[in-house]
């Protein structure tokens, strides 16, 4: 159900190591819980971020949420397409709906995050 080539956080972000840069977005589960995304706020390029820092935010009709950086790194690129088309977060959470890319990442930090099976179990456990 969840892609195997990415790692997951308890705050429902995903991160994909693309060799040198890591791409970050929110999971399909998070997107469906939020409902239709209406607005996205993106970080500044070049900014150093700590693991767990609130670096972006996402708003839907129902709620506004922060997006946390899954690991330490530096913002290398942001997905400007989301500013005009926030619906990409719902339509294509793992591909066109990415939020930002990090460089200067210690990829060893990714090992502490959940894989697809663990994340699926985590979601199931917290569903009511």
């Amino acid at each position: 159900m969840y892609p195997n080539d990415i790692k997951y956080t308890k705050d429902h972000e995903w991160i994909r190591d693309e060799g040198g840069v890591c791409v970050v977005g929110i999971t399909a589960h998070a997107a469906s819980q939020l409902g239709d995304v209406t607005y996205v706020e993106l970080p500044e390029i070049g900014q150093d971020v700590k693991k767990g820092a609130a670096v972006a935010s996402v708003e839907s009709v129902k709620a506004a949420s922060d997006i946390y950086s899954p690991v330490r790194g530096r913002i290398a690129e942001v997905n400007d397409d989301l500013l005009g088309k926030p619906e990409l977060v719902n339509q294509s959470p793992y591909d066109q709906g990415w939020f930002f890319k990090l460089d200067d990442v210690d990829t060893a930090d990714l090992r502490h995050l959940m894989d697809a099976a663990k994340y699926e179990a985590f979601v199931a456990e917290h569903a009511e």
Partner: protein
Amino acid sequence: MQLIYEKSREGCRAITFDALDVPEAPLPAGLLRAEAARLPELGEIEVVRHFTNLSRRNFGVDSHFYPLGSCTMKYNPKMAEAVAAEPGLARLHPHLSSSPAYWPACQGALQLVYETERLLAEIGGMKQVSIQPIAGAHGELAGTLLIAAYHRAKGRHRDTILIPDSAHGTNPASAAIAGFKVVQIPSAPDGTLDVGAFKAALNDSVAAIMLTCPNTHGLFEPGIREIAAAAHEHDTLLYYDGANLNAIIGQCRPGDLGFDVMHFNLHKTFATPHGMGGPGCGPVGVGPRLEPFLPGPRVVKDGDAYSLVTPEQSIGKMSCFFGNFMIAVRAYAYIRHLGDKGLKEVAQYAVLNANYIHARLKDAYTPAFGLRFMHECVFTAAPQAKKGVKALDIAKALLDRGYHAPTIYFPLTVKESIMIEPTETESKQTLDDFCDAMLEIAALADRNDNDLAHAPFTMPVGRLDEVKAARELNCAC
């Protein structure tokens, strides 16, 4: 119904001006528009009918039961309106307060400000109050600026404010505008603040913690004294968000619980209708530590005479004159009218009514928490959502039954949240009728009635496209 822009016909006018009989004064080119403003063109009666008809489609406390959780949409007695309409108050010129020469001409108004601030200080257990802030969030901003001034005067840099995950969104917004970083504190599974997580987040960079009590889950914080003691060990201040003051008014006082600073919502708790951005009044109250920094000028009493002074270390003005003075007039009338006993009954009936609704609905809807609710009860429609009926559908179905919808999808900590706040002003009959409607909807949801997904059917408009409205905001009426 057409928008006013759609009704517009070129050349129609409500007012026509006489021909210019003085030389025309040219305006600088830089101040002139490149093209005419697109204003609707209609006759006076068409404008009056348009807005009168719009107003008749409105849901208001004076027309419907309005159990919008967290908003305290209670009935505002017309007595307070009558007092505010007194010409001696309504026609007072605000500039009378601007020079000592005029003060003798506005002693009554200054007395009213002074006494309203004293009454609110008594209700909040605060040392002083300023009625200057003009909204709840503005009161929060005043409070966070006072907190910043306090730590600055002590010569230390405190850059963090702690805020529970159940808080109203205005709390982190106010803290951020006052220059603070916000750290979110999780709720415990029972819906109260996770005191352990709070203590773990506490250190000498924390300027304050902002709490709503009862919190937005409708629960009184049982650990409040422990929270206050732990905070004060670090000289971290406690901010009380007065959003839910209706639940405890006359029963306990934020100052006695350990809070150092608070705001009141006079438009909400004290007899001014609110919602939709109408004029508000969010007085800020302080304990002794923050008193030197209060907004100025302040009304002081010397013998029988009232005058104005600005504290030396004041954070400055929060608004022109005394903010929305007329809202304070209504609050003064309301407080004096109800007196001690009446104000105590406000909280008693607000809590009783919420618990009555909880008792009647708890088998059909799942309470979000197991503790006893205060002035509002929070349910989760997650079981209904599994069957295909969301909190949104339930809310829309209530409109067809003559009720304003409860708050839904807030607090964010509760899935498919339905938050009901009946307030003290509703009769048992109204509460019963509302509960009957909720139970009827629950039975429909149980059968997964398809109609619920398309409600409402009796309103001027059906299901609105909220996503389109949020993405392509275009304000016109």
